[in-house]
């Protein structure tokens, strides 16, 4: 299933499949964004997940040629999952699981013994951990952006 899943602190979750979103049965921005503890995003064989209490955001990028007929939604070129860095989060790490296209960002509030791949967040509070699937070039990008997209 392509789409996102929101995980809440009361052990519930909300699934927003692309099909349900397309049929306007569910919406990212109109469903609860409060008390989220994690979120994942699936697209074909890609699976992205970010963990941690805080604010999350999901958006997609598109391009549209003027010559395409009216009514075209454009071509989706990027899928994005973001989490705003909370003051309690001191470190983050991107983990690529054994499945090639399965990526997860985990945040920590304590120093880690294994510092390989660790990003220090102390001066980045308020910025956004960002995981993106580049659908043109077929890869995943991890970055920290100043704002939600």
């Amino acid at each position: 299933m392509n789409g996102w899943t929101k995980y809440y602190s009361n052990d519930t979750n909300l699934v927003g499949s692309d099909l349900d979103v397309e049929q306007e049965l569910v919406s990212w921005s109109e469903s609860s964004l409060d008390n989220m503890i994690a979120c994942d995003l699936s697209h074909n064989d890609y699976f992205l997940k970010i963990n941690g209490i805080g604010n999350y955001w999901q958006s997609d990028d598109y391009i549209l040629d003027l010559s395409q007929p009216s009514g075209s939604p454009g071509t989706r070129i990027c899928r994005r999952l973001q989490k705003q860095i909370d003051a309690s989060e001191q470190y983050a790490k991107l983990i690529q699981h054994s499945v090639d296209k399965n990526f997860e960002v985990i945040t920590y509030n304590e120093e880690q013994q294994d510092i390989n791949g660790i990003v220090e967040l102390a001066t980045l509070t308020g910025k956004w951990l960002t995981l993106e699937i580049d659908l043109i070039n077929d890869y995943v990008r991890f970055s920290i952006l100043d704002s939600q997209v």
Partner: protein
Amino acid sequence: MPINITWSLTSGGGAITSVNHAAVESGLTTDETTTFIRHDGTRKITNCALFIGPKTSGYAGDFDGTSDYNELIAWGDSSPAGDFGGFQINMDAEGGFSGGATWGMSELQKTSVDGLKFTVRTGIGDNISNAIPLSEKVSASVSITGEIPAGVTTSSVKTRIKIPTNEDIGGFREFSLFLKYSYTS
């Protein structure tokens, strides 16, 4: 849900799938065309930006899509006055698309001083990575660069093509104009 984008020649007008800048002699500038961009999303679209590319399907010019694109970029890149030209975009709708006949651009000033008019060239609007963000001046209803709020039909840009004085090969050229944008359901 995926939203639909509409390009039109008037605010809220019928959809277009091409813009004809019409024929013009070397050394002159084509007609200016105002193109409106709107969407049917219930939320704003963000990170809107324009770029061009070769026309890859349905090419109906006199050469080929890649040659036309490369030529257009080369015109924008050129510095000798006689070789300078190319596709130009004016995003100052709020200011009445100001800038006079040159839009404040020349072979020495390829982006206007006010940052609202652009000559497409290498690194500026020539591909998706270099897309030119839509200014907040594209409409009085827009206050943030790159945004088109839901329901706003007045966002518009003006475009034209300056033919270099030294261009001596006549014929119809074609290229593609793209909008890049972000959307949250």
